[in-house]
Structure formats: structure tokens, C-alpha cells
């Protein structure tokens, strides 16, 4: 029932503009796969290539091993959930859900039966005769999913379906989507610019920027071991320090970031681009990886001054300044970690928490 998808050297060009730049990837059957990137990065175009609304300029889209070129969206085993859901406002809920069956000539009784089954699945039993406008945002969301599942597609494509919902509902729908995916066992391809969504739901994530796939991996790999500066700065918060590589022995490297003693970090455990001594680099340290030094002689230590603090209840987000460079710190509000606003504070980070990458484009905040 589930089919794998492979994109082979897919290019999409609109005149001079390249929307998708040589996308190459395989999505296994039954996988929850996300495309994550800022708006305009080409992720929706890629989705439209898979669903059939857009033909790639070059390359192949294969679904279950079959080349999909020339196959229209109505002939592909995919179902797309639109960003605005695209429920038919003039039809009842049941008629919306049964629409894919209706256009396939299924008789009314069977249609209604299937609609009722799906309403059961999305926890809206007996609401088939309501109008679309009578449902809440989350309910509409679920109806759109039910409609997409009506003809048991092999692949479900979701184009930022949660972006219109409020925060609470969004978090709830994340869990629900994941549960539905586990229940029906379909391949889900999910498009989002919200890294939280991508990280919580996905088996694997492809991070995209300007039409290029920057990195593919599971959430932990992408967050902990980004391979490009863009991924490091786009996924989660990160502090960037510009520096120069002093030495690199394949295990550890020394980096001079202009903050006193050179820093020691691990060399690319996830196989990022190798840096040679003398190369410029970006050193990324996450706000939660920075700590206030407990003793005087810890590794990767540097001095900084307090700038400002945002208090979030469980977390304290502090901005420190080290040699003219603002750095963010996230500390758990556990009563320790008092900061003297008027004296220099020593900060440090563990060698495995610093990531040195080739300088590249950073995501704009």
C-alpha cells in the first residue's frame, strides 16, 4: 500500500529563476518525511512536482519505481492537503470526505459508509451533515485529512497544513497527525517552515534553502550535527562566531575565534566538510550549550559582560557580550546561575557542543 518515492536530479526552472536545484532523495514507504526551509526555498514547488501540478524541468520523479512524467495529478497515487485545506464550502462534511469516491463513480451508499468510517477515524463521528463553516479550525484540518485518506492513497502530501492554527491547536494537531500516520501507515511528506513541527513529527527531514537540499537526516542529526552553516543557523537558535582553524587532527580541532584562548571542538562527527589549518570557519554554539563557568580553569573559557535578560518562566534567555559579539544563553531557571550584571562573567562550552563549519550563508533571523 505504501510506495517509495525517489527524486532523481530534479530541477524546476521558471524562466531565469531556479526554484529547485538538483534535488536527489529517496523517501521510503511508510516514512514521515519533512521538507523544512524558509518561505521561497522551493519546498512547495518540490511538493507540487510530486503531486503532479508541476512537471520538473529536468530529472525524474518516481513513485513506486514508476516515472511520473506526463501523469496528471488526478492519476497519481498521492493526496495533497493544501495550506488553506481547500475544503469545498458548498458541500457538507460527508460530501467533502466522499468527493474522491464520487468522482470515481462510487455509489452513494458506499460513499456515505466510507465517509462515516473516516469521520470515526478523525474523531468527528456523526458530524457528516454539518457545513464546513460550522467546524472549528482543528476540525476542518481533520476533515481535510479524512478527505485525503478516502481513496487510500499511497502517499499523503501536506503543505504547511498547521500554519493557520493557533499555537495550542498546532501542538495538539502535531501529535494527532503523527498518530494518524502510525495508524494508517502511509508515507507522509510534510512541508513546513516551522522547525518545531519538523523535529517533533518527522522520521527524516530535508532542510532546503534557495532550491537546494542542504541536509537530509533525522531530527537529532540535523539539530546536533548540522553540515552547513545554513542548517546550523536555521534549525534552532545558534550563536555564530567567526574564526580561523589553527589545527585539525581529525579528532579535535583548535579554533581561534578572537575570544582569548583558542577553542577546542570535535572534528565533524557527522561528516561535515573537512577544514584545514588556516581556513576561515563558522563556529556554532547553541544557547543551551553555553554555561556559566563553575571553576576557573575549564576548557573553552572566555569572558563576557551581561547585556540583557528575557525571563520566560522555566527558562532565562540572557544576552551576553564577549569582545563586541552578542551571544545568547539559555539557562534553566533552577535558582543557581546568578549573574552579576556589573562584573565580567566567565562562560564556557563543552568541546562536543561546538560545531565548526565552512563559512556559508546564514539564515536570516
Amino acid at each position, binding site marked *: 500500500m505504501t510506495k517509495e518515492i525517489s527524486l532523481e536530479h530534479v530541477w524546476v526552472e521558471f524562466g531565469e529563476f531556479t526554484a529547485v536545484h538538483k534535488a536527489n532523495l529517496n523517501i521510503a514507504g511508510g516514512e514521515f518525511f519533512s521538507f523544512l526551509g524558509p518561505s521561497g526555498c522551493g519546498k512547495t514547488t518540490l511538493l507540487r512536482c510530486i*503531486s*503532479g*501540478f508541476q512537471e520538473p524541468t529536468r530529472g525524474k520523479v518516481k513513485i513506486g519505481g514508476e516515472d511520473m512524467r506526463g501523469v*496528471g*495529478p*488526478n*492519476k497519481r497515487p*498521492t*493526496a*495533497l492537503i*493544501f*495550506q*488553506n485545506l*481547500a475544503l*469545498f464550502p*458548498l458541500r457538507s462534511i460527508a460530501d467533502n470526505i466522499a*468527493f*474522491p469516491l*464520487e*468522482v*470515481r463513480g462510487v455509489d452513494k451508499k458506499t460513499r456515505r459508509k466510507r465517509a462515516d468510517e473516516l469521520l470515526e477515524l478523525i474523531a468527528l463521528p456523526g458530524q457528516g451533515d454539518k457545513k464546513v463553516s460550522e467546524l472549528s479550525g482543528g476540525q476542518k484540518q481533520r476533515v481535510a485529512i479524512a*478527505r*485525503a485518506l*478516502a*481513496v487510500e492513497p499511497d502517499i499523503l502530501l501536506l503543505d504547511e497544513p498547521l500554519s493557520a492554527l493557533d499555537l495550542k491547536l498546532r501542538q495538539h494537531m502535531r501529535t494527532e497527525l503523527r498518530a494518524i500516520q502510525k495508524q494508517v501507515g502511509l508515507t507522509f511528506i510534510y512541508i513546513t517552515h516551522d522547525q518545531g513541527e519538523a523535529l517533533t513529527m518527522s522520521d527524516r527531514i530535508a532542510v532546503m534553502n534557495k532550491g537546494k537540499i542542504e541536509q537530509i537526516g533525522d531530527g537529532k542529526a540535523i539539530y546536533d550535527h548540522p553540515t552547513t552553516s545554513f542548517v546550523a543557523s536555521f534549525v534552532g537558535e545558534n550563536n555564530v562566531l567567526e574564526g580561523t582553524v589553527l589545527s585539525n587532527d581529525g579528532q579535535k580541532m583548535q579554533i581561534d575565534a578572537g575570544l582569548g584562548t583558542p577553542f577546542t571542538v570535535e572534528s565533524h562527527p557527522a561528516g561535515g566538510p573537512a577544514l584545514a589549518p588556516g581556513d576561515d570557519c563558522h563556529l556554532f554554539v547553541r544557547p543551551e550549550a553555553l554555561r556559566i563557568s563553575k571553576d576557573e580553569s575549564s576548557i573553552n573559557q572566555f569572558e563576557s559582560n551581561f547585556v540583557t535578560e528575557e525571563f520566560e518562566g522555566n527558562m532565562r534567555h540572557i544576552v551576553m557580550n564577549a569582545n563586541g559579539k552578542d551571544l545568547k544563553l539559555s539557562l534553566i531557571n533552577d535558582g543557581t546561575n546568578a549573574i552579576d550584571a556589573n562584573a565580567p562573567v566567565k562562560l564556557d562550552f563543552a568541546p562536543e557542543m561546538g560545531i565548526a563549519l565552512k563559512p556559508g550563508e546564514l539564515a536570516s533571523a
Partner: protein
Amino acid sequence: MKMKSPTAMIPGLYLTLFFAYLFGPLIIMVITAFNSSSFPRVSPWECFTTDWFGKLATDDKLLAGLGNSLLIGVGVVCVAIPIGLAAAITLSQVGPKLRAALYTIFIAPILVPGVVIGLSTLIFWDRIGTLFNAPYESFFYDGTFLTIFGQVTFIAAYSMLVFLSRIQRFDTTLTEAALDMGATPTQAFVKVLLPFMAPAIGSATVLAFLASLENYNTTVFTIVSSSTFTTVLSSKVRYGLDPSISAVAVIIIAITLIGAIIYECRNRYNTKGWAHVIADRPVLKIATHPGTVAVILGLLALAAVVFIQNHDSSACTAQILEDKRALQQKLMEEQSLNTPQQTVPAPTMPNLGPLGGDKGGASAPSPFGNSIFSPENLGTSASDGQ
């Protein structure tokens, strides 16, 4: 009562004038339909009569014209609505530059004078007919066919405007969603776009039908030897008018009013607020249902028809005729008395004397009746002048 300031009264005054301007002619027209005077007028009021409706019912020319008009109206709707819809769909799908150009082309027939459209339609199909050596009985020279085509050129543009305003609010992702879920493009059109356009199709149909029915300046050319309602009416205006035209107006106004009232009732009945009010009042619910309103209005119209059929004003009209004849008789007698003997007008002379002129003659009670145009008056004024 508090006195309003003069500026506060301006809107009221304006509205009064506005409605008087709008409805004044209609009201006068309706009144003239019931006056037995053989020319449509309100005064002098002669008799209340419904005979003009009867005359209308037997006016074969007008009825034939009306039949043609209805046929043409239906034909125009059938051709213009699909064309208008297609044009609107095209405009909604092309790029902005092409859209601007196409829009101008589509809208051009509205800007071209109807007379020009009528003439050019006539000439165009005549040329084509000549090309095929078609006989004069063929459709190239058929008034109904030519009128449908002539009217469609601009009525299609009107209906396109109606569709355009609706289609601009259409969410194109709905069509994409339908396609994605396995619908063929035809199914997506029929099941998604058409239902969305249905209200616009309804209003465009009404608009196109009415525009066709009332059209004159194109039709007068394209209708050739046949006739429509409007061309018959206009020839009536030219060759002698009688109040049966007012009777037509009464019928049209009545139909419009009934339609408008039922439509408005339906709208109000379907509002959320009213649904709330009638939720637990079954009697009110039935009473305000547009169907009930339609039945009541239909019965009223039926009653009016029965009344019109049965009302007999012959006694009154005969009386009026008799009065007229008597007056005529009297005038003739007086004339015959007058002419030989100049002395007869003498008794009136003293009355006229101080005032002078025939103006005084008209205002003063005169043995010659009230008309100053009667020959006797000429006589008296002449003698008065001497």
C-alpha cells in the same frame, strides 16, 4: 414635536424628490391604464375602466411581438451565458498583461452603440447569406436569428462582468484539490466551479433575459420584417397611442413587484436572525415562508385578473359618450342659432366688457361651454374685438 434644522431635512427632501423622480412616471402610467379616455391621461378623469386590459388581450400584433421577444430572450440567455462564463474563466486564468488586453476586447461591445451593432449584424449576415446564395427565407435573413446574434454580442459582455465579480472570489486551490483527488478537469468544473458560480449564473440569466426583452436600438435593425414587443410598442407610440400601453406597463410593474417581494421575503426568511425568531413559532414560520407569500400574491394577482375580466364600465362610458354627444349637440344647435343672428351673444357682452378679451370669456360662465377653441368663441372674440 421638535423642529428639525433645515440641513437635517435635506436628506429627507432629497429622498422624496428622488423617489418622486423614479416612481412618478410609473404611478401616472398606472393611473392612465384605468381611465376610459382613449388617450392615456389622468385628467380629465372619465371613467374607471379595465377595458384596456381586454383590448390588450386581443391585440394580436403586440402578443405576437411579445412571443418573439420571449423566444429571443431565451435564445440570448442560452448563447450569451456560456460565452460570458467562458470569457470570465479565461480572464481569471491568464496573465495580467493578456488579461488587460482581453478584457478590453470582451468589453468593447458594451461601448459600441447598439445601433451600430444592429446595423453591422444585419450587414454581416447579409454578406454571408449572399456568399452562400441563400434564399430570403433562410436563417441569414431571419429576424429572430439575427436579433439573438446581435443582442448576444453585448449581453454576453454584460454577463461576463457579472461572472467576473464572482469568479474573482473563487479559490483556485479548490479546483486543484478536486484534480488531486482524482477528478477529471470536467468533473472539477462541474462539481466545484459551477456550483460556486451558480448564484452568478442565476443573476446573469435574469439580467441577460431582461436586457434582451427591453432592447430596442439593436433589435429595430436586426428584427427585419418580424417584430418584437419593443418594436410593436414603439410603432404604437408613432401611429397612435391608447392606454393599452399603460395596461402593459401595469402588468410589467405587477410582475416585477411580485418577483421582488418574493425574492426579498426569501432573503429575509433565510437570515440567521429570523431563523432564530421563528424557531419555536410554527405559525409565524409558515406565514413568513416565501412560498406562502408567493401563494398569497398569486391569489391577489388572480383576483385582479378576475376583477378585470368582470368589471363592466360600459354604463359609465356610455354615459360619458352620451354627455359628449349632448354637448356636441348643444354646441351644434347653438352654432346654428348663432351664426345667422349676431345678436345672440349680446347677453354675454356685459360680462366680458370690463375684463376684455376671450380670457374673460373662458372664465365666465358661458352658454358655449368651457372650450375656448370652439368656433363660437372665435366668433365672440372676433365680435368682441370689433
